[in-house]
């Protein structure tokens, strides 16, 4: 059964690439989205037969969540006026980033609970094993990084960081375009504050690798979310489409990284393709506005007070 699931993922990945290719030309654009849609339905249905899924309650929760959220998204997407499309893209993109971050959170918390479980097992096993063996075993399971393996932990934490930033940043972009948020600057010397928050976020990302408790991980997620807000707040409304495209690329990257953590090739391929395509698209959009990307991202910092006045 698992082979069938993996084959479905493979076909879905092919359909995504063909769909994006189609969407890059006006003549084939409408076929492109349909192909990608078929790929998405195929991958979603196949996942219900994924061998890692268990507990009837979890199946029910999955169906409930897809029905409620999918229904709401369908309804809101259908009735939003054409001129409000960019902020809807920002909203849905932010949700994707948040989902990637949440997947990272589930896996990190699961790793932490396994560390607790293994240390209890060690105590029980101490009678039978020599002290040296117990120490070896404990060294292999003492923190998140050693339990998940360095590659999985690094990409999982990075994906969670990028996803959380894309989540809160996209929500700010949505609020600005939807006319719910007008302030261009939150704090004095926003640029310095942003740098400080960014450094703290990266620090706690590294600490999350070496931690064996959940407190550090929670602080890490809060900091990443705050950084996303601070990053998007100084950027002016007219530049928002470029910034949404950037967050779109970041979400793609986060999805690719979490796909590696879960061992899911469809997520790796689709996420990385979007990450690369989105990066290029961001550059093209900035170029179409006749200004370099760095200008879009950082120009708001110095001029924000002047704009407000």
């Amino acid at each position, binding site marked *: 059964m698992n082979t069938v699931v993996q084959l479905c993922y493979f076909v879905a990945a092919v359909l995504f690439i063909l769909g994006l290719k189609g969407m890059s030309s006006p003549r084939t654009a409408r076929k492109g989205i349909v192909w990608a849609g078929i790929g998405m339905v195929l991958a979603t249905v196949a996942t219900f037969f994924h061998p890692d899924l268990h507990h009837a309650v979890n199946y029910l929760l999955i169906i409930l969540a897809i029905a409620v*959220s999918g229904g709401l998204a369908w309804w809101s997407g259908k009735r939003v006026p054409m001129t409000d499309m960019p902020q809807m893209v920002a909203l849905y*993109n932010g949700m994707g980033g948040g989902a990637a971050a949440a997947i990272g959170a589930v896996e990190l918390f699961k790793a932490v609970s396994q560390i607790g479980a293994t240390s209890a097992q060690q105590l029980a096993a101490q009678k039978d094993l020599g002290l040296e063996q117990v120490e070896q075993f404990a060294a292999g399971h003492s923190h998140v990084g050693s339990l998940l393996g360095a590659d999985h932990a690094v990409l999982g934490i990075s994906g969670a960081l990028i996803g959380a930033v894309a989540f809160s940043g996209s929500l700010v972009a949505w609020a600005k375009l939807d006319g719910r948020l007008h302030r261009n600057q939150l704090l004095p010397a926003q640029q310095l504050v942003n740098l400080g928050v960014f450094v703290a976020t990266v620090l706690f990302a590294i600490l999350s690798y070496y931690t064996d408790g959940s407190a550090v991980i929670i602080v890490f997620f809060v900091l990443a979310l705050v950084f996303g807000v601070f990053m998007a707040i100084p950027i002016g409304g007219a530049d928002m489409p470029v910034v949404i495209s950037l967050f779109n690329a970041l979400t793609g990257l986060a999805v690719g990284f979490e796909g590696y953590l879960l061992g899911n090739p469809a997520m790796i391929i689709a996420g990385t393709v979007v990450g690369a395509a989105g*990066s290029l698209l961001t550059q093209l959009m900035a170029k179409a506005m006749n200004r370099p990307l760095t200008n879009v991202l950082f120009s708001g910092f110095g001029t924000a007070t002047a704009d407000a006045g």
Partner: protein
Amino acid sequence: MIEGLIALWIFMLAAFTGYEVISRVPVILHTPLMSGSNFVHGIVLVGAMVALGEASGATEQLIGFIAVILAAGNAVGGYVVTERMLEMFKTKDEQNKKGGQE
């Protein structure tokens, strides 16, 4: 299953694919394509389903549930919005057909 170097190859090839697939895209398609790629990373739904499906304990279930809620919104909303944007790119045949019926 997909470990270390193999995954690195996949990352590399997928990145080049993404770059190649949308090079030379006309300006008029920038926003629909952004929306379309936004839909494609809705595949995160699959990962969210697995994360919730293998969850044990209330905390993991709660975060997993949030993950599926967010991911389903991304996938469904992304599709609907992209589809509506691309409505404007109907081919001449389709437009003529519609015009003939009216």
